[in-house]
């Protein structure tokens, strides 16, 4: 059930889906701009998501100097004055250079100016490792954004309607950070067919950034819930399938796309059925996505939990360049399987 093997014929790769969505957005809205490094044709961005845009819309695609801090500010200024910038940050690691703008400007303007302004802008950025890019080009830093009030953090997965997510982000009145895992680009956008992705049944929540809930047993008999997002989704789905085939353990999987404000309802619904929760993220463990989910589920669904929430994440360290070292650092299928198997009472 690994992604490439189970991709449905005729479905497109995620980079192409995002690229087509950008073209449609530019066709529909004259106020949308793209800013980023190396986004002009023929190069079309480091991951080719902006390809063809500057040829068609030369006035609205700006290639920038390597000035991420300044670019975040420029996008904020454009947004304050009625335009809709989409800022492409070439590697998610580089959002660190924009944090003053994010924390002290973009996220604050609306509320500190007493709702006199809106700051609608989208920051698209690839996160994640497994490509051997090493410590500063492989991180999943979205967890740093989860503590910033008044922004929206969206993480696309290959099973989501990527074009719809991106269109909704551009239409959003809030600043939206749109996280694209690097491995996503080359993979097929696996949209459900007849309510299934592969062998797993799928439910999709409402709203602009839906959560996808997966079950191999029609949302009954699951003994644990796994909540994850983004680039970990195919890994977790593979683990869920392995758990069925090799251990006869049935899990529900919730793949969030809206990480902030955190969409907890699908998780709580699933935990009410399964009684156990494992969080899975590619970022480092401490102070992360899983920590926040664990705290909230403990607060709101303590009586549903038969055992403590467990977290699967990267080790608190750097992401090494050498592939065997990187693989050891980042959570994989085996780590997810192990975490579920280790849950007390999960094997009845």
């Amino acid at each position: 059930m690994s992604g490439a093997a189970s991709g449905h014929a005729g479905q497109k790769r995620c980079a192409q889906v995002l690229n087509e969505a950008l073209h449609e957005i530019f066709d529909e809205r004259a106020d949308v701009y793209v800013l980023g490094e190396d986004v002009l044709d023929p190069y079309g961005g480091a991951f080719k998501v902006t390809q063809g845009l500057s040829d068609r819309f030369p006035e609205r695609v700006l290639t920038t100097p390597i000035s991420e801090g300044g670019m975040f500010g420029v996008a904020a200024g454009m947004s304050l004055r009625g335009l809709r910038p989409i800022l492409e940050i070439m590697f998610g690691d580089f959002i660190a250079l924009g944090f003053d703008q994010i924390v002290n400007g973009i996220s604050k303007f609306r509320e500190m100016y007493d709702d006199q302004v809106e700051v609608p802008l989208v920051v698209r950025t690839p996160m994640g490792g497994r490509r051997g890019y090493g410590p500063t080009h492989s991180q999943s830093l979205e967890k740093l954004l989860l503590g910033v009030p008044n922004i929206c953090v969206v993480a696309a997965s290959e099973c989501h309607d990527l074009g719809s997510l991106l269109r909704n982000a551009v239409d959003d009145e809030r600043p939206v950070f749109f996280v694209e895992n690097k491995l996503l680009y080359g993979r097929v956008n696996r949209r459900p067919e007849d309510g299934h992705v592969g062998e797993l049944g799928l439910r999709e929540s409402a709203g602009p950034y839906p959560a996808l809930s997966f079950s191999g047993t029609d949302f009954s008999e699951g003994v644990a819930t796994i909540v994850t997002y983004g680039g970990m989704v195919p890994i977790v789905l593979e683990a869920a399938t392995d758990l069925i085939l090799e251990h006869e353990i049935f899990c529900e999987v919730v793949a969030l796309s809206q990480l902030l404000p955190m969409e907890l309802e699908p998780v709580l619904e699933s935990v009410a059925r399964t009684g156990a929760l494992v969080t899975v993220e590619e970022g480092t463990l401490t102070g992360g996505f899983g920590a926040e989910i664990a705290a909230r589920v403990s607060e709101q669904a303590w009586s549903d939990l038969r055992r403590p929430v467990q977290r699967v994440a990267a080790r608190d360290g750097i992401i090494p360049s050498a592939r065997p070292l990187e693989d050891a650092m980042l959570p994989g299928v085996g780590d997810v399987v192990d975490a579920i198997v280790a849950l007390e009472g999960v094997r009845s």
Partner: protein
Amino acid sequence: MDIAALYERMYFIRRFEETLLDLFAQGKLAGTTHTYIGQEANAVGIIDHLEPERDVVFSNHRCHGHYLAFTDDAFGLLSEVLGKATGTCGGKGGSQHLCKGNFYSNGVLGSIVPVATGIGLAEKRKGTGAISTVFLGDGALGEGVTYESLNMASLWKLPVLFVVENNFYAQSTPIELELAGSIPARGAAFGIEVAELDTTDVAEIHGAARRAVTRIRETGEPYFLVLHTYRFSPHSKGDDNRDPAEIEERRKRDPLKIAGERLEPAEREALEARAEKRLAETVEAAEAAPAATPEAA
């Protein structure tokens, strides 16, 4: 140029800021403030050339003078600083975080410069003909993002007026300990047209600002205006360890003194009386205004 009108605006800013410091001393203000006392000629001389309905101003932590010169909204500012519901940002922003119409300010040095650059980009793309003016000080020249902004504004030919008000101190640190090289050369290095003035004479600043604004309106390109100035008041409230003799020497070039001497004494007194009356009414109204409360927010 209407020197009487400029004088009255400067005088009002001066007295507004002095009043804030008094209110602090009386315990009626909480938080912090950074007063503009001594630098009034810059805001008044420049902003007289801007059109509040069209142009945009982004200011910094020391923003009251710019705000008053651009919006003339003394009640909104005072009640904001007093934490009143009637404040320009409902009490949420306070002294450093103002927004009204086309005026914005924010409290992190340098942080505003790329935002103002993006505003220039937006206005240029929208074809409004607006100028985006950003006020920064010598302190903000220590922030890297300032230079990223100069680069982009020049590269993209954006209608941004960068005003550097060099008051020779970054909080308590004198310029010789915080800044190397030349300030005007910083603008020139990016291919931006530069003017430099060492004056507190509002008439001279007004003339230089007219040339700057005219150039930007003609070319649509950025301009870097360096004004050497001085603040007589502390950085914020009590934090002043400068040599009192230095401050006294600078007071000889008080912009109010220079402009005031050009007015007939009777006219000057009348302008000052009018400003005092307006200020007293503003203080009374702002003090009487309802406090910002979580319910109202």
